[in-house]
């Protein structure tokens, strides 16, 4: 009994000597805690909110949404980069963000990187949706920021909180100012970049629905994050246009026609699953970010890994759209639905509506290709992209979740979905995927990202 009493008394004494929570002094660390010591959950929540706001904000069509995601990802990374040992800022590494153009933390001062990231992310979102941000969505960003500030700032001294918040806001402001010169500033106000100069030719895109003007015809001139990425990843010419029934081009169109008319139920499901129409979902780039976010959450990713991953994906998606839109408007290729109605069957209907821009190459294929390279790099067990995961992101829109055992299998299914839907020729998808893979590879290889992130 005596033997038991001694340790018990010791435990009671230890407990009694713990400081009372109510009287605890705020944290005053000697140095800033590393970025990897924080959870990435709150950053994932910002990307969930980004998705919600993209789908409810006027003008947020796929090109414009990809750019907004891009800057949010970069803001997240830059806000925590000085808390990652050996990491390098993107300043001086990517287009528009010159060395010395971003504020830096004051040497010797303590920062809470989660709080920096919180305020930078919120400020960047407010900037990117600008004048089209509704009061309701602005309130959602404000609430998210305040909620995070309360949680992440608990037990952090007011000085560190203020310094961290001010640094995050300054960083977002600097990035926003840089964004205003990239060619996509406030593009949500005129997604059609009118006036548009029409080209009259048989091969040329014509409107496929109520929308007369094509989306973002000048997007290819936007400054990309990777220097000259659009020119470097161009695929070359498509199969020569011809209306001759014996031509290869006619065969491509006939292939789409036959596929659409013989789709099985699973193919129609796939076509709709990956459609990711604006204002219903958060666009194709948003879907890819949703998958990334889910995989990060499932692996309990730290703020370090989350911020690096979001920046990689942000650069990849933004640049994939610029590259893809260059080929679209360089070639101005007619959509399958228009060609088929003119030369094969005037009664032809696609599975879903065709978006208002030219065919070659496929935007879905290019963006998923770029995103796949990033996700394979971050999560796959080997270079073949093997990784088993279930994409839960479309359940919210009434689809059954889809399970994949390999990232590239997922990318190919997304690309194929456009063929099943009758939206794209197979060449648009195959070439688009390769373009996307090239963009993704460039993002991974041409930027000095931190290694061994946790």
């Amino acid at each position, binding site marked *: 009994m005596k033997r038991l009493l001694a340790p018990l008394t010791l435990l009671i004494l230890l407990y009694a000597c713990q400081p009372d929570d109510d009287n605890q002094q705020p944290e005053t660390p000697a140095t800033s805690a590393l970025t990897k010591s924080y959870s990435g959950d709150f950053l994932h929540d910002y990307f*969930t909110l980004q998705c*919600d706001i993209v*789908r*409810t904000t006027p003008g947020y069509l796929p090109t414009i949404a990809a750019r907004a995601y891009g800057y949010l990802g970069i803001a997240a990374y830059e806000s925590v980069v000085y808390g990652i040992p050996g990491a390098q800022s993107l300043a001086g590494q990517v287009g528009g963000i010159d060395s010395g153009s971003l504020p830096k933390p004051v040497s010797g001062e303590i920062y809470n990187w989660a709080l920096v990231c919180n305020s930078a992310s919120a400020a960047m979102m407010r900037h990117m949706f600008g004048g089209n941000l509704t009061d309701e969505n602005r309130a959602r960003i404000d609430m998210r920021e305040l909620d995070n500030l309360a949680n992440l700032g608990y037990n952090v001294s007011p000085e560190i909180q203020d310094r961290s918040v001010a640094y995050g806001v300054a960083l977002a402001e600097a990035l926003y100012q840089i964004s205003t010169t990239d060619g996509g500033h406030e593009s949500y106000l005129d997604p059609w970049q009118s006036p548009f100069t029409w080209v009259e030719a048989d091969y040329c895109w014509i*409107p496929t*629905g*109520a929308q007369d003007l094509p989306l973002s015809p000048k997007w290819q001139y936007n400054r990309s994050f990777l220097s000259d990425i659009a020119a470097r990843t161009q695929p070359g010419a498509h199969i020569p246009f011809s209306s001759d029934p014996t031509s290869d081009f006619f065969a491509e169109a006939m292939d789409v026609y036959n596929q659409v008319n013989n789709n099985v*139920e*699973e193919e*129609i*499901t796939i076509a*709709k699953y990956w459609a990711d*129409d604006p*204002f*219903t979902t958060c666009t194709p780039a948003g879907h890819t970010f949703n998958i990334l976010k889910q995989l990060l*959450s*499932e692996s309990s990713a730290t703020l370090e890994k989350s911020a690096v991953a979001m920046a990689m994906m942000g650069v990849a998606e933004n640049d994939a759209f610029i590259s893809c839109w260059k080929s679209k408007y360089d070639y101005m290729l007619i959509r399958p639905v228009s060609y088929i109605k003119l030369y094969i069957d005037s009664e032809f*209907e696609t599975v*879903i*509506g065709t978006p208002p821009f030219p065919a070659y190459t496929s935007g879905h294929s290019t963006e998923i290709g770029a995103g796949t390279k990033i996700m394979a790099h971050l999560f796959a067990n080997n270079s073949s992209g093997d990784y*088993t*995961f*279930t994409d*839960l992101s479309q*359940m*919210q*829109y*009434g*689809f*059954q*979740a889809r*399970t994949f055992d390999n990232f590239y299998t997922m990318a190919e299914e997304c690309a194929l979905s456009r063929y099943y839907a009758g939206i794209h020729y197979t060449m648009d998808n195959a070439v688009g995927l390769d373009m996307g893979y090239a963009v993704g590879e460039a993002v991974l290889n041409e930027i000095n990202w931190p290694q061994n992130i946790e």
Partner: protein
Amino acid sequence: MGISKKLIALFTFCYCLTACGPQNRQENQNWPVNFEELITLHCRAIELRESRFEIADSLRFLNDSLSNRADTSFSSETAGQLRKLYKRQAVVSAEGYALADTIRNRMTLVMSDLDPVQKRSFNDSVAVAVSRRGCDNGDQF
């Protein structure tokens, strides 16, 4: 010997209870969520998804027929049809956004502790339950 018989009888009774339980027992078991409620939400999401695509198709076909007409005058009847469709689209979208948030939050909770095999199993259970309710219209939603 008498005790053994009682044990055998008890064992047989328990086995029968398990074997003769409701068919959806496997769908519901062990998932950290109100499964039936989730299926109800999911069924509604399927209905909304079908409505969205149906409205989009109607708008597409209406616009197609407008562009194919030699007479491009915009009749009040067509304008009325379009107005009605856009109104319906807004209503469906609004409900869809709210429902999407609810489902996403539920799914985040339920999935956070499942490994990839369990997730696959959960999704199979959802598919079976949705099919049992008949809200997938027989297609692979």
